[in-house]
């Protein structure tokens, strides 16, 4: 039993990392007032591209960069639609989602289920001197470590720096920010791109760290869960770490339970992350605490001479 527990706990960070990266990325988006529902598509694009590049014989680092590039491209398409053309953000997000899922399926067709090296934790433990449980938690690959540092960096930039102040102003009150001399469109587009990079890394993490293969549909709703997790963490990247660990823990339970031979229906286990999302939204709705942190101009396109 103790071994099962250790095995479970040590896999939590790697399961939490994609959630955390995507959520941190979406927090950047939403604090600037842009709601990006295309995260799932961006993740899929990055996941397939990075695997394909590695299969083509490029190194893992270059594969990751290409994955980021592919995700960024899709995020840029979304950003142009949502920020510059002022298409309805929900609609633009759904377009980006559908496009990402469709194109990734097309690109990955015929390359499914082929194992790549990807990114793994260093062989042998760097923390062997620590108790086993703690060492298990700390022995992670570098991309997983990056996810946690990225979340802290996102929090610091948004809450403590000059750029973050402008970003928040754009998301809370675009006309006021404009009057204060902040380039609203530029900041929003920048936020979409920065958020897109993090969502793309989340997707590449899934295929390079998590699965070491590409399978169509492997993002499996994590992008959507990340959208919900932005609310759960109340637009705060530090709280997102806690939320991601919670969802990572639930997700990490799935393979443990499956391999333990316990007699639990497979479908029930597999739907547990979504049940957790639903449960959270229910609880949040009952206590209605999430809304007060929501950026006031979220989802509202801005055009200077338009009367509001």
């Amino acid at each position, binding site marked *: 039993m103790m071994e099962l527990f250790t095995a479970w706990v040590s896999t939590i960070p790697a399961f939490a990392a994609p959630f955390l990266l995507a959520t941190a990325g979406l927090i950047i988006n939403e604090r600037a007032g842009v709601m990006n529902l295309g995260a799932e598509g961006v993740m899929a694009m990055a996941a397939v591209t990075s695997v394909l590049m590695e299969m083509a014989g490029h190194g893992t680092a270059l594969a990751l960069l290409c994955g980021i590039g592919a995700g960024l491209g899709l995020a840029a398409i979304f950003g142009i639609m949502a920020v510059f053309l002022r298409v309805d953000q929900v609609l633009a997000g759904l377009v980006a989602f559908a496009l990402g899922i469709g194109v990734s399926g097309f690109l990955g067709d015929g390359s499914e289920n082929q194992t790549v090296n990807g990114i793994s934790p260093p062989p042998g433990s760097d923390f062997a001197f620590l108790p086993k449980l703690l060492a298990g938690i700390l022995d992670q690959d570098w991309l997983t470590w990056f996810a946690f540092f990225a979340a802290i960096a996102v929090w610091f930039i948004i809450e403590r720096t000059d750029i973050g102040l402008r970003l928040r102003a754009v998301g809370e009150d675009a006309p*006021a920010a404009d009057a204060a*001399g902040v380039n609203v469109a530029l900041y929003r587009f920048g936020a979409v791109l920065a958020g897109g990079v993090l969502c793309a890394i989340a997707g590449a993490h899934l295929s390079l760290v998590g699965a070491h293969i590409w399978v169509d549909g492997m993002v499996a709703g994590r992008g959507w869960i990340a959208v919900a997790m932005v609310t759960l963490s109340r637009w705060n990247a530090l709280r997102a770490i806690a939320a991601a660990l919670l969802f990572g823990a639930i997700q990490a339970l799935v393979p443990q339970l499956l391999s333990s031979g316990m007699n639990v229906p497979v479908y029930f286990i597999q739907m547990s992350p979504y049940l957790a999302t639903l449960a959270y939204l229910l609880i949040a709705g009952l206590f209605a605490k999430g809304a007060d942190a929501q950026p006031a101009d979220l989802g509202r396109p801005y055009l200077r*001479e338009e009367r509001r």
Partner: protein
Amino acid sequence: MEYELSRIQRERFDEISKLAVRLAEVEKSFGPRPALAGANFSLEWGEVHALLGENGAGKSTLMNVLAGFYTADAGILEVDGEAARFETPSAAADAGIGMVHQHFQLVGPLSVLENLRLACARRAGWRSKAEALRAMETLGKELGFRLDPSARVDEMAVSDQQKLEIMKVLLAGARILVLDEPTAVLTEQEAQSALGLARSLARSGRAVVLITHKLRDVLGFSDRVTVMRAGRTIIDGAASEGMTAASLSDAMVGSAPVLEMPPLADGRQFKPDMLKVQALSVPASAHGVALTEIDFAVQGGEIFGVAGIGGNGQAELVEALIGVRALTSGAVLFDGVDMPPSPEARRERGLRYIPADRMGMGLFGELPLNVNISLPRLLGGGAEKKWLVTKSWMNGLARDAISQFEVAGAQVDLPARLLSGGNAQKLMLAREFTGGMEILIAHSPTRGLDIRAVQAVQARLRAAAASGCAVLLISEDLDEIMQLSDRVAVMSHGRMSPAENVAAVDRARIGRLMLEMH
């Protein structure tokens, strides 16, 4: 005796005589409708220049061109003697122009200092929070007021938000200040000090434009005045001293007749206690005021005025009366019977309501006029309840309302948000003045409207009273209260003073009541 100006004196003279701003033949259209049709304006250093005009005359549009929010379609703009064209507010700010809008351009959830850093850090060259704080304190001392740098802006009083706006503009290096109706949202005392501040800013060598439609602001506080009407300049920078209220209002409204106040018939029949409020108490909400033991009664046929500085419980009282806020104790009686709890049922009993925030709580900005007019009729008032709603029925109602209440520039399918302030309020009145109206609650019904719209609204309120309706008028404009009401009470800190006959009270005492009842 003959004397020559020294070279330095001459240069100083040239500098002083140089215009701060010159706008000539400026044109600007939104869609097919011209907002500016050849407007002129000139501003000298060291003066307070009043820019006067009705709603929609183009004052704000012209100043928005100067401040870079709009770009002109045609015309000349010179700042400090040099031709300029501002594509962005930021470019105008670089040229030393700062505008304080009627709707403040502050980011509500951020703090005072964060707002200042956001707007001014680059121009003022602050590298740290401490530097920003120092600059803020130095300026505060110069202007003679203190703001808490860590206060959240959306929790501050409106007058403090305005001070912050002025600081923001000055710290960003503005030497030409445009104040868009700075007194519209302030009480008497606050307005006096804001206008005094404008004056001292001008005396310190800056130039101040005061957009207003209050004649008092012009006559009491400005050096020169420009009057606009329908996108054109009617009076171009005349000295304010020689002006009279009559000459200015003539220029403002042109030859169109100003609505006469219909005298209220003396033989009105008062019906006692149409609306009776007994020991009403309401708990304080997050940023609001608690109401304590409020007692008053409004007779049918009278206008009952409630004076007071905004934010002393007026909003809470109104919400309790219309049924959207729960009472802790007390009762609201309508003609001797307890009011039903739901807003819809109250409306059906004859309660009508003109909210202070007419776009937020009154009209549906995105929906067309015909829906705005018809929807409430479907909700309350019984006779017009129906399940099938036809476009022709809605259009008919809307057309009647438009013509009867003289809503200018309106079509039945126009979104309500595109109406100007005065016309939106007329639409609001048309919506509420339906059959079965017995109690009317009007909260700041004339705020931000021009003279003619004010008079139209006030005439409607009087007509409602004359027809036997109990009218509760809540306003921060003491002139309006004194002019319209039969009886007056004052709200302060969630309490209400005993009502008095308007003929028996004097302004000074009301003013003291507004401030003193702690």
